[in-house]
């Protein structure tokens, strides 16, 4: 569970304006919350705040509160927070601990720190390694991996620790379609296990499939917060600096020409788009009551 209450945060240096303004939002256990927004809208700061990186390591002024699993982030030491919240940062290279020399050891590092039994640890590490598709690279140095592989390593390192809350900042930025789907497949599984997932992601199609809730950030404030389909289909998305899905754009443009049944919500997935356009091309009558 992640709970923001009227949270405002300002970095100590650089721009004097707050990076986050009056954020109030909740991510429940067993749900995936997607966060979208333009460059500089505060997504990365939001991730840093949930994990305690801000203000613990970056410094900064804040008001309001952020609680993770009932513990106030600002008042809990970071290493202790790490037992309940896992953070996958945007730049995977900066996430290599530097304390371990192979992929397998890197995955085990967090578990060693948590003093997990060796047998349990071995089992979990092998499992996670297979999940993120790194088994073949188990004995390679983390520094020698490609960007995409480092990204999967960063995700695996956090997964291995089994936190109750997991935050991922653009986890698929360097992954191809296959790799991205795999990551979201893992997130779906985490959700089933009751984990609260907060994911900053610009590929809306991935969110449309997996997220229960989507939050739009604009200039550090929450511009929209609601069920995935509603938020991603919102016509104001471009105003907030977020590119809508092609399915949505196509349906909205089609509607201007009377080629979309306006009683249907704008589609955000392949399936709903196909259903809607199928109705149009086959001239399946639009129910009378719904006609304008």
């Amino acid at each position, binding site marked *: 569970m992640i709970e923001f209450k009227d949270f405002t945060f300002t970095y100590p240096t650089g721009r004097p304006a707050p990076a986050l303004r009056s954020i109030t939002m909740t991510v429940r256990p067993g749900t995936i919350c997607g966060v979208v927004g333009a460059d500089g809208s505060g997504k990365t700061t939001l991730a840093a705040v949930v994990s305690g990186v801000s203000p613990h390591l970056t410094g900064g002024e804040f008001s309001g509160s952020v609680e993770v699993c009932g513990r106030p982030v600002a008042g809990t030491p970071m290493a202790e927070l790490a037992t309940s919240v896992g953070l996958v940062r945007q730049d995977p290279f900066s996430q290599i601990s530097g304390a371990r020399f192979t992929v397998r050891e890197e995955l085990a590092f967090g578990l060693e720190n948590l003093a997990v039994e060796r047998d349990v640890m071995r089992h979990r590490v092998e499992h996670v390694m297979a999940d993120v598709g790194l088994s073949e690279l188990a004995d390679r140095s983390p520094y020698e991996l490609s960007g995409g592989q480092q990204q999967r390593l960063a995700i695996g390192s956090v997964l291995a620790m089994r936190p109750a809350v997991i935050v991922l900042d653009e986890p698929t930025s360097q992954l*191809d379609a296959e790799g991205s789907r795999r990551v979201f497949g893992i997130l779906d599984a985490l959700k089933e296990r009751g984990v609260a997932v907060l994911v900053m992601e610009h590929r809306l199609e991935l969110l449309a499939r997996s997220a229960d809730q989507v939050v739009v950030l604009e200039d550090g404030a929450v511009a929209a917060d609601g069920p995935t389909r509603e938020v991603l289909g919102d016509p104001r998305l471009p105003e907030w600096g977020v590119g809508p899905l092609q399915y949505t754009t196509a349906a909205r443009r089609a509607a201007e020409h009377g080629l979309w049944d306006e009683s249907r919500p704008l589609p955000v997935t392949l399936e709903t788009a196909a259903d809607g356009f199928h109705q149009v091309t086959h001239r399946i009558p639009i129910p009378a009551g719904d006609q304008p």
Partner: protein
Amino acid sequence: MILSIDSLTYAYANGTPALNGVTFQVAAGERVAVVGSNGAGKSTLARHLVGIERPTSGTVEVEGRRTDELSIAELARSVGFVFQNPHDQLHARTVAKAVEFGPRNLGFTAEQRARACEWALRVTGLTHHAQDHPHHLSFGQRKRVALASVLAMDTPLVVLDEPTTGQDHRSLALLGSLLGELAEEGRTVIAVTHDMEFCVQHFERVIVLERGRVRWDGTVEQWLAADATALPADGSRDDAAERSGPPTDLERPQLTRLARELGWSAPVATVDAFLSELRERTPSVPAN
């Protein structure tokens, strides 16, 4: 031909092959997207174009000159290479200075320099950030500074390594119009990317790399029309590929997949193409 690659093979120091007999040519003014999954060899290929990697065998020629006979700096007159990661290249106090670095090295006159930099900053939307410190910019902005620093060098060939990573909606639109502007100037652009939406919107030719080999080379329309399962088969599929399973199908753009789902045969990728196809397939449009 501005670029000519012949049987390019490259193996890492430990012997792992990264590129295997890559052959293709690019004519001046073309816009080519090199696509493929992670690990297909895209970045390694791009690094050969600017001379950072040297072929194990085969040749790469830019403007008729073999890259393995030139230094990186000499090649920089012909090829502008925008690295995937902007972190390690911008060590100037201001954005303007970073952009000026290349033209200065290439011996532009003060006037040429001023003109090139002004243009590069404008087309990348950074004019207002000219006096900012690059470290105070966001990742997406820094990526654009790296791009501007290469555009200012006025090279006939521009190579972009994963230009869309970390770019938001507005930056993507800017990048798109920038590519249009480069095309109008007749400059050749080669982008290495795994972003298929970006590829179909701004490029005319697609080269698909798979496990270090060219799997497909043709126009965007042809590529969209081709069914994944019928992909070529130019007889070059090696045993290793067979052993490690079926070829990875690159994810098609959203509207291409939608058109397929609807059973349409025509290749569609953009909203406009989709709408005109939709209009044709809806016999009588209700009169508003």
